[in-house]
């Protein structure tokens, strides 16, 4: 089955990341290749987030003003993949969250992350390479403790794929 052909609940989306302390991130071609991406989207690699934030591409525009012209012109430029601020319920023993913490501590580890969304028949994947920053624990007493971190994708390193 190809792409999901239904309106998806937000709950359908889940986040995965490559395992291992020093992963080899996927190439740009692999990021848009189902077999490479779906190999990462397995339950052991799932990041147990509270919600998957907006993912995709940022806005970027060049604004030109032409003398003598009535209107200026806005032209989209090659915009970067969106940074994602993730909130996960904090279980200090969660191996995936520990890896995220280690990545944030290191600061220069590139890792492939995968967002998966499915309608039970077809599945669509969004994969990107990113580094982790701003790893914080939010321990407000009124709710569960949260691990909050931001994924900053590397430029030109993301792709879409789907089951075929």
């Amino acid at each position, binding site marked *: 089955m190809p792409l999901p052909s239904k*309106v998806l609940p937000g709950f359908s989306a889940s986040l995965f990341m490559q395992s291992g302390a020093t992963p080899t991130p996927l190439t740009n071609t692999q990021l848009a290749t189902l077999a490479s991406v779906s190999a990462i989207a397995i339950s052991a690699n799932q990041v147990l987030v509270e919600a998957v934030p907006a993912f995709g591409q940022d806005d970027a525009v060049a604004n030109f003003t032409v003398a003598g012209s009535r209107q200026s012109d806005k032209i989209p430029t090659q915009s970067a993949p969106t940074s994602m601020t993730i909130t996960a319920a904090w279980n200090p023993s969660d191996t995936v969250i520990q890896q995220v913490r280690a990545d944030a501590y290191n600061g220069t580890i590139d890792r492939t992350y995968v967002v998966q969304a499915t309608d039970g028949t077809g599945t669509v994947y969004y994969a990107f390479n990113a580094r982790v920053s701003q790893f914080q624990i939010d321990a407000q007493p009124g709710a569960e403790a949260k691990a909050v971190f931001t994924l900053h994708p590397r430029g030109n390193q993301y792709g879409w794929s789907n089951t075929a």
Partner: protein
Amino acid sequence: MATQQNPVQYAKAIQYQLQSIVTPVPVYATFNRNFAIEPKFVTWMLRNVHQEVFTGQNQNNKSIDRPTFQISIFTQVIEDGFTISNQILQSLHGYSGLFGGATNGFWIAKADVIWLYNSYDNEDKLAQVFLDCTLDIPT
């Protein structure tokens, strides 16, 4: 694009799924005189079947469906009701996948169960536990 889901399908799926969870305890769509013969049984009521309608004249411009069904557990022994409610919680809460069996089932993104409260009906001599379950259905 979304098509309106059929409540008949929901009813069949809920009946099948609940029955498969609590078997051999009987499951009924409504409360009747079961209390006279059954020491424990489960009933359900479906409500709030509603796909949000978006703008424009295209009837298919709709959102997902999030129906809720209430599950009522009736038992002569109070602890039995709590045990059955736990069976339902463990099986259904957070469940994602085929809901309602191969024949009448459909895929759900999420089942979200809220354990509402327990009670006792002195007239029927039955303890009761009530739960709400909301489904997220891609459409």
